[in-house]
């Protein structure tokens, strides 16, 4: 029975989580009805297709009306239009800001601009995420980015407070914002094997260790200083500058040989891949140190992950290293540098290698 008008409004806003998910996933009303019918909700409650359609339309309308409140979730708590119990508000927000890993993987590191938005239909086709859902996710990224971009203080905390997200989701958004801000290249074919969670982990490492906020331990009281200490959307420029000093490890031949012998001594007999490690040591070391030295270039920052893969992970993989080999090697590689008498940049080295180590562990898939 086709209605000219059909509305149902509860004093407490009625929301069905299943329908909400379908709405978020960008299903049209008729598709959503089909999905629900297949889900068996009809038999459960002796409903007809008409009832289901009417219910779905009502819910879709409700969600559309709620949507503008979800743009700034804090409003949801003190708006008067919808009476929604708090636990339900939390669900609404969390689900609205949830995203598909497949989708985010496509836009990670891209500029969150109109240009990218225009490509969403391609991404939609590629990832099988509906265009509507892609747009929502993209707009969420952009909205979060815009809000926290200029904010002082820890990135994750800012996101959590402004968007009332769970810790996990806030961390993921921090990664997205961080990647977007630094425009890390993630789309190259060689990087395709990496998941969003791999990158999110790396982003966490970078945020925690390589940004300005990372070193500002003490909580500054005045805002001027906090600006300096707590901007962790950008990499710490001073640190990047200092990384150039590490070049000595590969430019000073003695140092390089010394480093190699230390590492080889430590590794001998502990791994099957020892021969390859020994043979490749100089190449690998050069690769890692060169990455460090080039990070002052924005362009090279963007290629950070590509470089890691090309200069380190791929050679290792072609030599059939195992993950354990990798761990062993990197640990000794890092630690041995401390024993080098003439190497004075221990602090920078640790700050650099700490992150590199964990990133490579994460990125090295067996």
């Amino acid at each position: 029975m086709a209605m000219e008008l059909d509305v149902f409004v509860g004093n407490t806003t009625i929301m069905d989580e299943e329908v909400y998910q379908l709405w978020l996933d960008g299903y049209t009303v008729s598709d959503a009805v089909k999905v629900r019918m297949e889900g068996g909700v009809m038999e459960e409650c002796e409903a007809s297709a008409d009832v289901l359609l009417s219910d779905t339309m009502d819910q879709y309308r409700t969600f559309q009306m709620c949507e503008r409140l979800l743009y700034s979730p804090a409003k949801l708590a003190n708006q008067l239009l919808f009476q929604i119990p708090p636990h339900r508000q939390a669900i609404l927000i969390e689900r609205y800001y949830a995203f598909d890993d497949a989708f985010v993987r496509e836009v990670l590191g891209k500029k969150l601009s109109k240009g990218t938005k225009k490509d969403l239909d391609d991404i939609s086709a590629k990832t099988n995420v509906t265009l509507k859902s892609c747009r929502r996710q993209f707009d969420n990224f952009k909205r979060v980015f815009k809000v926290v971009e200029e904010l002082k203080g820890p990135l994750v905390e800012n996101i959590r407070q402004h968007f009332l997200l769970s810790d996990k989701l806030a961390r993921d958004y921090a990664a997205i914002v961080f990647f977007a801000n630094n425009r890390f290249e993630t789309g190259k074919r060689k990087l395709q094997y990496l998941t969003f969670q791999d990158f999110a982990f790396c982003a966490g490492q970078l945020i925690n260790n390589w940004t300005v906020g990372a070193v500002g331990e003490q909580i500054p009281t005045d805002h001027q200083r906090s600006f300096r200490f707590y901007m962790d959307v950008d990499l710490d420029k001073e640190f990047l500058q200092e990384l150039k000093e590490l070049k000595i490890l590969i430019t000073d031949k003695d140092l390089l040989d010394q480093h190699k012998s230390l590492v080889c001594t430590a590794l001998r007999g502990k791994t099957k891949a020892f021969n390859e490690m020994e043979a490749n040591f100089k190449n690998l070391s050069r690769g890692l140190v060169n990455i460090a030295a080039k990070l002052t270039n924005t362009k090279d920052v963007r290629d950070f992950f590509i470089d890691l893969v090309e200069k380190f992970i791929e050679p290792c993989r072609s030599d059939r290293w195992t993950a354990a080999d990798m761990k062993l090697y990197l640990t000794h590689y890092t630690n041995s540098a401390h024993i080098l008498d003439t190497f004075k940049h221990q602090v920078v080295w640790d700050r650099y290698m700490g992150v590199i180590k964990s990133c490579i562990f994460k990125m090295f898939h067996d």
Partner: protein
Amino acid sequence: MPGKLKAKIVAGRHLPVMDRASDLTDAFVEVKFGNTTFKTDVCPKSLNPQWNSEWFKFEVDDEDLQDEPLQVTVLDHDTYSANDAIGKVYIDIDPLLCNEAASVISGWFPIYDTIHGIRGEINVLVKVELFNDLNRFRQSSCGVKFFCTTSIPRCYRAAMVHGFVEELVVNEDPEYQWIDRIRTPRASNEARQRLISLMSGELQRKIGLKVLEMGGNAVVGYLQCFDLEGESGLVVRAIGTACTLDKLSSGTPASNACNSPSKDGKEPVFGEDLLSSSGPPTPFRALPTSSSSPPPLSPSKPCSRQSSSSDTDLSLTPKTGMGSGGSAGKEAGPLKTLLRQQTQTALEQRSMFSPTVSDRVFYLQEFPFFTLTSFPPGFLVHVGGVVSARSVKLLDRIHNPALGNTRSYKLLDWNSVTADEPETRDAWWEEIRQEIKSHAKALGCHAVVGYSESTSICEEVCILSASGTAAILNPRYMREGCLDIGIVDHRFEDPSPPSCGFCHIPYDELNMPFPTQLTYCYHCRRQKVPDVLFTTIDLPPEAAVTGKGCLIQARLCRLKKKAQGEVNATAISNLLPFMEYELHTQLMNKLKLRSMNALFGLRIQISIGENMLLGLASATGVYLTALPAPGGIQIAGKTPGDLSNEHHILTIQKRINDTIAKNKEIYQINPPELTEEVVGSPIPEPRQRSRLFRSHSESSDEVSELDLSHGKKDAFVLEIDDTDAVEDIHSLLTDATIPTGFNSCNTEIMPGIYNWTSAVQMFTSVRVFRLSNANLTNQGLNKIFTDLCENLLKSFYFKLRSMIPCCLCHLNFTVAVPEEELIQVAVTAVAMTYDKDQTQEKPAEKPITKEQLQFPMELCADSSSTNTQLSSKISGSLTHFFFFLSARGPPPLPAASVDYGSFADRCSTWLELLRLKAHTIRRGSVKTISSLERSSPVPDGRSRSLRSTRGFGGSSVTVVKMTPLSFLPGTRIIKYLGIINMFFIRETTSLREEGGVSGFLHSFIAEVFAMVRAHVAALGGNAVVSYSMKECVFMENPNKNQAQCLINVSGDAVICVRETDQEPVPSNIGQTCTSETDGAT
């Protein structure tokens, strides 16, 4: 200068962006009351402005205080052009005028614009200082409390019920003034909103004055309606029941037993533990329950049954006395006597009030009508049946020289030319009420309870309808001689147990107003009862009921030729009786099919459209133990010779029998088998109500021979002789079954469910169906209309499935024909969960509380001679038909109504005529449109329940529950904060952009809810009870991308606490978080 109104504008938030350039707003606020306006400073460039204004003070008459709303307008300052209005808030300050209600209004109000909807919020503080003693006012009626609740509000005690009050005011509709052509839609809408607000205020004030004159202090069951008569104007009318209410002090459990049949009802008021809680400030509950010991608190006379000394106190209890132990003690005298008498007869209970009667000063009242639907036990003696009257009137244009002048909206002065207008409308209603009164009299009753009035308007034709339940109220409460039915006395001497007494016939069985079949009461065996009982009231909580109840609806469409003026009115009047008759037959069939014998809360609505009439009757069916078991339904063919037909009939018969058996199971109707007892008086025409017998003699003679296995008595016979009839019966049988776990009713109380849990979900649903097929038949229309209603119910069940087990209570359907091809159905109801395991547990014997018993009243006695001819018009204890036509009178009279023909004559033969006609017209089929009545246990009581409470985290918004019932399960109302009566208009010129008509109305209804909640929260409340949406007028013009909607809602703002709590939940105005959430979603 009796009052000073003070207002302070604190802050705004979430304001819309008014300046595109800066994406900000320079907001300021104008505060207007009457003709005085104040302004705040401009708060530049902020969407969350902090004004923190000084206190704006208005020195005004109390009369204005009652009439006018405080008008708060938020504007965007613009240096170069005119300031743009952001939106407005109208604050009704009436609740502040009553010292028992709210003391301050403070909170966030949605800023409302009739074009854009809610645009941010504003925080306002309002206080009133009244200079004089309230009781001295007579121009105004400050201090009179208003309640929408149609029972004695909990936490009050009725010291006296004075009776019917009514008033109406008339004005031009601003929408139809010439100026409307040149002003913006916004200005027009605002003018209308403001005018209606003013008129409501004035109406309330006037009713208040009447109440004061009668010596009362409150109006209960206040029902206010708008008639948008279009060009002929705007009528705001209200009816209510004047009472003198005493407040029970807040420590007292507020359960007024007459309407709170809580499972442990005796505990709050009469539990033994109460003995210990005595003390000077303690009110009633502290009284001992034993009659032998004088009440410790009573400084007055000893309370023996005979002395019942409180006679004068009862009627004129000073307001101040109610909280004090002293007066409580005095009044408790009879009460405690009563407690002892629970085992004694009802007669004796009543007798203790007898001395009070003669002393009392009675006000003569013209109409012994009561808008209440629920009464204290023992108060309602007998119920006669439904009485109703309808009248078709032609609205005439106002010949008003003032029309066209830009008059102020305060043109409600009676000197203006429109002044005679209300009198015309008054006269119309007067006629109807007289009719109702005579019908009641014909039923042997002296009062009408559950009384309500309504209108349906289409173009210039208007149907006025009134209905109620004829009843006999306890005569001991009434003035001598007020009963003009002199015969009844002996019946009152008979003790009737409260569980069945109201079913006993009030009329003389030898001189019955209509033919019915009487039997001795199946409960007490002493008095006669009818076979079926229809009423408009709620099921009395003490009534003995078998099984559960369910919603029963009869639905009907009738096509009508388009016509104008008088011709149209005549056509409508001619159709009305047929519609009523068919609706009634449908109800009867459906009732039988469910094996039930009584209807409560019956509401018959007939709406007119240009080319059709819609009829919808809703009621809650129950099986009253006192009434005989209903007979079955028998199918009969008209052509008995046809073998295939015979076979077909047998099949149908079997299905009907199966359905009845199934329904008995569903509704758990297993009445104890009684030995066949004598049928009462000789009954000439036993089943007169069902006109579709083969013949009357046949049915009456053969009943006993029909073996239908449903009852010992005659079955209801349906005759089928054509395919239409077969379809009808099919549809009757293919009733959608109610899903397991659901129940439904349209009353407050549902038998069979006693243990409500606290989850409630109030909802409003509106559907509009466009008839696409131009050549629709009555049959096709009926099908569409029925499907429309059924699908609505199905949708509710589906949406609320997470609340199972749950009952949809107070399902209130409103139908309208907004345009030629459109049918609109609006429903407001509440879903309440209950604990399934104990549904069958009947509450323990309900004690009678003192509040209930001290319930004297003034019934008006109209001893004018009975309108004898009317008896013939009453059909059973059911609806009867009455109609007359008003035609346009001679030019000088705005609308003269002319009785068509000599009415009495017609009516005497009316039923005969009708029977004949119906046969001709419909060839003998019973119009049994399929129904989807859902069975539902009727709640009879509520148990205390675990209320799921959930803190509203960091939210600053008070949770406000809403319900159309007079209570919230699991809670106790500790304070009534005043009446909520709000009228909103919303209009759009960008319908598509707002999501089409559905999107538009959806957000409007949500906005209305939000504004109601905000006002309640600002009064310090956390719930609205007796909420109803009185009006929902929706108009669209999709071609122009426009739509407009008017909504009028009302209810009582209250503070309620969990039943277990003694102290009120802290619900500080506006910024509190109350720890309740509706559990439903």
